């Protein structure tokens, strides 16, 4: 593996379902970034983390959710997990401390003169935060956090749905097969550009939908519904461009990937969630 010294922000988000295989390469699959303009809070409302995975990058957790606050004086707090099997903690918080010295003069009757008083006021404000997760066991969890105002009162409470992967025992998705074989056998890429996709769900979960995503010319994944147990065709190339006034990035990957997004529902709680993985093909041109 080449050691990348030029640290570009390319965190590869290809979550692999490791069925019966020890360590899947963990990543957090991000769902929609939700913005509540009224309360001035933006956050990811769904996260998936690998079971028992620890990372220095995620401050001792297996993944983290970013929360951004727009009201000055607000702070993220009271992070709670629905289960002891998922640890959730605020592990990163932006802060700023400003100190101002004020001089004012008061009349001293006894001394019959103005006396100088120096008062120092210190204000600490908090901004965005990251909530890290550590999954002790596989499952679907809910994590809540409060947006606390400067006066100590709670402005609002938000919920993040956290699902896990990497432990076939309790993952919502039991198996994903492509062309008759476990999707993991096609790592890191396949030369079979079309094949039958078969998704099997775990006991307590129902398959809601399957979507296949391919990149458009702007690099965005465009998803189309796909029927289970039917043939899908993988992206054979993925040429895309990011163009701004300042610069232009043109991509032509050697291993273009096709995203497979599975939406599931917990039969008991009726909660829905998504699991995203991908398959890569090879393009030498």
């Amino acid at each position, binding site marked *: *593996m*080449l*050691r*990348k*010294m*030029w640290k570009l922000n390319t965190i*590869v988000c290809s979550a692999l379902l490791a069925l019966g295989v020890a*360590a899947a*390469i*963990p990543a957090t699959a991000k769902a929609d970034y939700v913005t509540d303009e009224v309360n001035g809070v933006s956050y990811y409302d769904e996260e998936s983390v690998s079971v*028992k*995975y*620890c*990372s*220095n*990058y995620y*401050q*001792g*957790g*297996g993944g983290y959710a970013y929360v951004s606050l727009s009201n000055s004086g607000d702070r993220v707090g009271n992070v709670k997990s629905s289960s002891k099997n998922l*640890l959730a*903690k*605020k*592990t*990163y*918080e*932006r*802060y*700023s*401390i*400003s*100190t*101002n*010295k004020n001089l004012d003069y008061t009349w001293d009757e006894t001394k019959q003169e103005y006396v100088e008083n120096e008062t120092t006021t210190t204000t600490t404000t908090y901004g965005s935060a990251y909530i*890290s997760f*550590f999954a002790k066991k596989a499952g679907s969890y809910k994590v809540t956090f409060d947006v606390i105002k400067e006066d100590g009162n709670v402005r609002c409470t938000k919920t993040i749905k956290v699902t896990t992967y990497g432990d076939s025992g309790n993952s919502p998705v039991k198996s994903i097969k492509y062309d008759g074989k476990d999707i993991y056998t096609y790592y*890191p*890429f396949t030369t079979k550009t079309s094949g039958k996709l078969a998704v099997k769900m775990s006991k307590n979960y129902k398959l809601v939908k399957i979507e296949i995503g391919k990149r458009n010319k702007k690099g965005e994944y465009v998803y189309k519904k796909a029927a289970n147990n039917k043939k899908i065709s993988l992206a054979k190339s993925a040429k895309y461009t990011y163009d701004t*006034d*300042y*610069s*232009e*990035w*043109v*991509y*032509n*990957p*050697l*291993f273009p990937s096709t995203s497979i997004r599975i939406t599931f529902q917990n039969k008991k709680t009726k909660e829905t969630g998504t699991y995203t993985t991908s398959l*890569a093909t*090879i393009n*030498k*041109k």
Partner: protein
Amino acid sequence: MKIARRIATALLMLTVAVTALHADTIDAEAAAPKSHTYVLDKKSGAGYPTAVRVGVGVTHSDFEVYLKDKGDYVAKVTSSSSDLIAKVTRTYKIKKDNGSIGISDYFGDAQFKGTSEITCYAYKEGTYTLTLTINNAKKKQIAKKKIKVYAGATEELSKMTYAGKSVTEAYGGLLTSKAKGKLVVKAGKDFTIKKIQVGGYKADGTIDYKTVKNGSTITLSTVKAYQKKDYSYQSDYSSYESGVAYDYIYPATHIKVTVYDKKLKTTYDVTKFIFKQ
């Protein structure tokens, strides 16, 4: 003639001696071990690595070629064998006339207007050569460079264990409840271990490293929380400080191993993490 030559030699030796004494002020960088193989091509001004290492069957094996002038591009990449394929997979071009990028770690002050990312894929272990053709905006060839590719085992460390548990196999970091344990490190093929350092975070976010002997017993850090200042300002009447406050779920210990790559002839650090439960 002979006397002149003797004087010249004596002067040269004196210069060398004086230079050696002042190594820290003149060119300390030349004395420090190389951590990469990047060089600057004088003719085209392009920056590229003279040698790279790739894993067999690894899809994310890539490196960058830095291009000096607007419109310069990598026109062709050819390989000495079909067992190692390569392609230009991404280009970055700065459109603004006053914009440029520089990588001081590799190239000092040199500035570039764009980059080309080359991705390789090795089907088999071996030593290969890639030939890169660089053209300018007028499609004229300005450089033809060879890059040696060593395809094979890329792990700097074939093994690292703490209290008998594998750290290298624990992706992300090893989670353990053992506060003290023996640290054993084994170098990968074509690598040698130069130094092993162990450290935990200090309250100011810096890491307190201590050099340890391979096979010695180490104690894990228990520091979970620290603050890192980004920015601070001070005047007579006010002060301002901003930064990030960290508070980990599990405290982290950094194991920093300095390795030497015998093929690329580079020296650099590899860090692994151990978390205390």
